[in-house]
């Protein structure tokens, strides 16, 4: 029972990380109908920005965080402006391939800048110490991640309900043509969406860096586990991404505890296959009706 509780809590916390990454994917998919396969590299890039500010320039933690997040937003804008905007109207494979190609470009650039080895953060970025509740130990990084993903989720909810840009984004998600016809600048909506998604990805990267360090090899592989989370919740649903992330985190940790730690690596992908076989639209996704 203690084992179960410990791994369950760990799963919820790690799930928060997956949920954050998943929210970024869902945002982009909702607004632009592009599935961002480069999410792993975006996560890593944001984390590395913060690492460089701390290590190369010796900035204080708060300034590094701000600079890293700002840098990520700029990268998000640039990705949309330079590549994906030019591919509007192309078939779906072009968009998939473009994000895959972007992931390779970033991988190359990051290898140039930061090299192939795993880099830990030089100072403690996340405040606090592990919380012990009864016999369950909760690491402070994961607690922060978990609460931050809840905060991001709530903030996005308010943003979509209350703010003009948020409502533009919802309208764009509904239909590009209708949105244009009522005067929404769809292209700037795309840009803002990519900016927000890159911002969220950078948050994930910073937390991963604080927890296990950053490496061009391992970090994108962890971030890829957001995909099962996205599909579990449904591609169109931000709530779904949150729940999906947590469920994937729990199942991964429990299978690691009860089957084998090795097996935990592929548990998310087995979940992914099962979802695709039995309920491709996910929990809260829209079931699309196709007409010829």
């Amino acid at each position, binding site marked *: 029972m203690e084992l179960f509780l410990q791994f369950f809590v760990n799963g919820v916390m790690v799930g928060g990380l997956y949920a954050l990454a998943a929210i970024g994917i869902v945002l982009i998919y909702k607004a632009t109908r592009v599935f961002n396969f480069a999410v792993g590299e975006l996560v890593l890039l944001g984390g590395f920005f913060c690492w460089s500010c701390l290590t190369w320039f010796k900035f204080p933690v708060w300034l590094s965080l701000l600079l890293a997040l700002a840098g990520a937003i700029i990268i998000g804008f640039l990705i949309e402006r330079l590549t994906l905007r030019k591919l509007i109207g192309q078939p779906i494979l072009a968009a998939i391939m473009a994000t895959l190609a*972007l992931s390779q470009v970033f991988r190359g650039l990051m290898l140039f800048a930061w090299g192939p080895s795993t880099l830990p953060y030089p100072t403690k970025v996340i405040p606090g110490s592990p919380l012990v509740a009864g016999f369950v130990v909760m690491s402070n990084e994961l607690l922060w991640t978990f609460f931050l993903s809840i905060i991001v989720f709530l903030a996005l909810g308010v943003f979509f309900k209350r703010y003009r840009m948020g409502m533009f984004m919802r309208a764009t998600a509904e239909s590009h043509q209708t949105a244009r016809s009522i005067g929404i600048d769809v292209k700037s909506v795309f840009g803002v969406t990519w900016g927000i998604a890159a911002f969220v990805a950078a948050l994930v990267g910073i937390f991963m860096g604080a927890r296990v360090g950053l490496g061009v090899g391992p970090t994108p592989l962890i971030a890829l586990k957001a995909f099962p989370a996205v599909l579990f919740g449904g591609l169109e649903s931000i709530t779904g991404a949150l729940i999906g992330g947590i469920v994937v985190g729990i199942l991964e940790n429990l299978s690691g505890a009860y089957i084998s730690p090795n097996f935990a690596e592929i548990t998310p992908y087995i979940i992914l296959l099962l979802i695709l076989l039995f309920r491709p639209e996910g929990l809260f996704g829209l079931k699309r009706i196709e007409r*010829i």
Partner: protein
Amino acid sequence: MYRPCGTFDETYIQDIAIIRTPMHWSSLIAGIILLFSLPFLVSGKYLSLLNLIGISIISVHGLSILTGYTGQISLGQAAFMAVGAYTTGLLAVYLKFPFWLALPCSGVITGITGIIFGLPSLRIKGFYLAMATLAAQFIIPWLIVNVRPDLTGGTDTLVVPTAHIGSFAFNSQERIFYLVVPMAILVTFLVRSLVRTRIGRAFTAIRDNDLAAEAMGISLFRYKLLAFFICSFYAGIAGSLWAYWMRAINIDYFLLSDSIWYLGMVIVGGMGSVPGAVFGTVFIRTLDLLVKNIAPWLGTVVPSLAGVAAAALGPFVFGLIILVFLIFEPRGLAHRWEVIKSYFRLWPFSY
């Protein structure tokens, strides 16, 4: 389609011929003679590039059928090649299968694996299918490494015996060249023929609109799974040849990034084009070798990059090339080739 001036079909056999004019025939024969004399002309490094290109062409042809002709995106091609390579490895090492038996067995077993991971394609498409094949790309290598590490060597290298036909051993780059390249030509011919049969037309119909195709009486179940089978079969053959070429296989050659590269070759060559698959593979693989040659030079110019230049420049240049092609020439090299051909057909009076 333009034909050279004065080329008319008089019989049905002429009408369906792939190779039409005396010029076609003579350039084909000259090209094959040149190709087979290459081992006498080029040195070791370029010969091994040619072998790699030959193996990649077989795999890319499979992917081209699945993605270019049937419109089903696959991110698992490298994992399927791993299945082929490890099947060959296990059959050859433990059951002492001869080369000519291990090769088709690997193809068929990989094909069946492909069908299993292609099953979700009956309900889903687009991004969702890319996800399912992405899952294959992670699950298959995990199974290879973890289920029977005592047989497959786990993360270590599995050493494969040399391929033999009779007493002739394919034990050098020159010799394996005469195994890989004829296979690549054969597969190219088979694929070129396949896409103009009933099956090929069904694939194209499914790509253009699968619901419309089903309404016209094309069984999606049968043809989608057939496309997955053919794709994985060729991946298996390519993987098997890879095993006999390297004579040592390791799971590190079959990663997600390799799958992305194979997909990139299809894109650069041109979707839904048989010559495109060949152009794309030759282009990307040659470019990769070029980049690998440039990397040490870059290391001497900027010393701080010396250690990482080789590993970093490859994905960077590859990603940029794919983006450039997607944005400026989405129909790929095959389309450019057609444009050049039709230009010279009308030259110098192109108006």
